[in-house]
């Protein structure tokens, strides 16, 4: 079921796809896509998220909501890798007529559960989904929602946090891609979030913290969060924005900028080396 080396190779390929598709598009958000690659790979290829690429509408599937919708490339890379659509679509990202919009569009892309992009809304949607799916006590379908740390500045996130705890939504798992950066700089300088896990705990959630690039640790944390049924759980994943591409790592400037042809070549070379050349 879970094989860390398989997930790692999937994440490596996803990272290469991310920088390639953003370079081809000429715009997009590499930093927050690369920081989330190990999280999304663990969900889709680590046996955490129950899904069937051949049947995107399978009623028994778990649901994934990408609240940080600007990280669409990481989701598209995972969906293509899983086989929801052909890899040839990746080169059409952000182009007229593409099924791969700049931000996730559930009406256009197989495997995208709901459209996102305006920050702060995904956890509310995921909570509604969790409440709507839980019609009988035996229902074990889970809802995963990936948020950015900067996104937590949106007040609606905490409206949703209250709601999920109040209703004891044990089938809801929030994951925070805590990369520490937002467009204007460090989150701690733009608008300090304080202790994220403690905030969720104060709202009545169970919280876990994990290295967001340690795939076995991520797997264990997400699996534990999924099996916790007494209420909602958050996994705060400490990550590096731009992870895997040295010149993008921890640079707020790479939040929403496409690499040039030279930068792409350097990035792909680095990714090939750092991930053991998996392709």
């Amino acid at each position: 079921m879970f094989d860390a080396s398989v997930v790692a190779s999937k994440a490596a390929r996803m990272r290469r796809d991310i920088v390639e598709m953003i370079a081809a598009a000429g715009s997009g958000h590499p930093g927050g896509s690369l920081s989330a690659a190990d999280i999304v790979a663990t969900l889709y290829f680590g046996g955490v998220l129950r899904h069937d690429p051949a049947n995107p509408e399978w009623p028994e599937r778990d649901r994934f909501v990408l609240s940080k919708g600007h990280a669409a490339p990481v989701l598209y890379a995972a969906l293509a890798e899983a086989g929801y659509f052909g890899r040839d679509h990746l080169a059409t990202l952000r182009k007229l007529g593409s099924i791969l919009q700049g931000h996730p569009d559930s009406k256009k892309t197989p495997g995208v559960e709901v459209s996102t992009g305006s920050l702060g809304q995904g956890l509310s949607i995921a909570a509604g989904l969790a409440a709507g799916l839980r019609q009988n006590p035996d229902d074990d379908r889970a809802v995963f929602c990936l948020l950015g740390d900067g996104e937590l500045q949106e007040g609606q996130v905490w409206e949703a946090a209250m709601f999920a705890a109040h209703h004891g939504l044990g089938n809801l798992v929030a994951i925070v891609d805590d990369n520490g950066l937002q467009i204007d700089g460090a989150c701690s300088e733009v608008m300090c979030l304080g202790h994220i896990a403690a905030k969720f705990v104060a709202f009545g959630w169970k919280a876990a913290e994990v290295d967001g690039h340690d795939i076995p640790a991520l797997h264990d944390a997400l699996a534990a969060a999924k099996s916790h049924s007494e209420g909602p759980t958050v996994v705060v994943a400490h990550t590096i924005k731009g992870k895997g591409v040295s010149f993008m790592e921890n640079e707020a400037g790479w939040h929403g900028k496409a690499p040039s042809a030279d930068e792409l070549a350097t990035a792909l070379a680095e990714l090939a080396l750092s991930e053991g050349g998996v392709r």
Partner: protein
Amino acid sequence: MSPKATREAFGETLVELAREGVDVVAVEADLSKSTTTAKFGDAYPERFFNVGIAEQNMIDVAAGLAVAGRVAFTGSFAVFATGRAYDQVRNTVCYSGLDVKLAPTHSGITVGPDGGSHQMIEDLALMRVLPGMRVLVPADFAAAKSALRAAAATPGPFYVRLGRSSFADVYDADFVFEVGRAYVLREGSDVTLAACGIMVAEALKAADILAEANVSAEVIDVASVKPLDVDTLVASVAKTGRIVTCEEHSVLGGMGSAVSEVLSEACPVPTRRIGVADVFGTSGEPAELMEHFGLTARHIVEAATELVR
């Protein structure tokens, strides 16, 4: 006995739909007694979600319930459900094309004493520009029940505009409303009175008064502001040659604007728009405010008389 307000149809209709086997759920933001969704919550507590005072969460929780396959209605007042949560309605509900049915109450100036902060007169403008959104403004209690049923039965986002106060019934209890259809309630040849919501009753009164002055007014209920029944409107003004639109909404962007947009292209005729001028509301009793803002049968008669002169 004063007629029931359109908001009183809300909870009652949800209960009926649930009894009939429709998978309806409702999300409310601490106004369940005022909106009457409490009736539904009492009958079906497992299908009722009160999010507290958190309208943005209300809309997106409803969106999530819709993604889970449920038919999700939302409550609250028109000013909060549309204004405070506009991004949620636009970017999640409409952009994803979800089965979320907004049916906020306390629209328009007939909210009364709460004043301008709570009198939503821009909601039709905000809602009708959203791709995929259907906008219904029922004239009375019976029409509201039928409009809510239509919204539940038709896939996709809906805005059903409900009010706190009502002055007269227009329809029989068994009225069945069709989305996208305008209803000619009275035929006439000199002027078309196109109205929605509580202004339909005022337009019918105005037609009576005009008849005494030998002016034959055709009265149309344009409850379906979007989609608009262009054929019925064009056929009417082709016959009468003039139109007065009547709505409890700003004259900017609402039903009168929608009608003017299509007629200016399809069949331009002299037009007067009755509605709240470009100002906020103010405290007062509903009937006083109707007079204050120029929304009575008398004001419609004046506008129509000016046009036929």
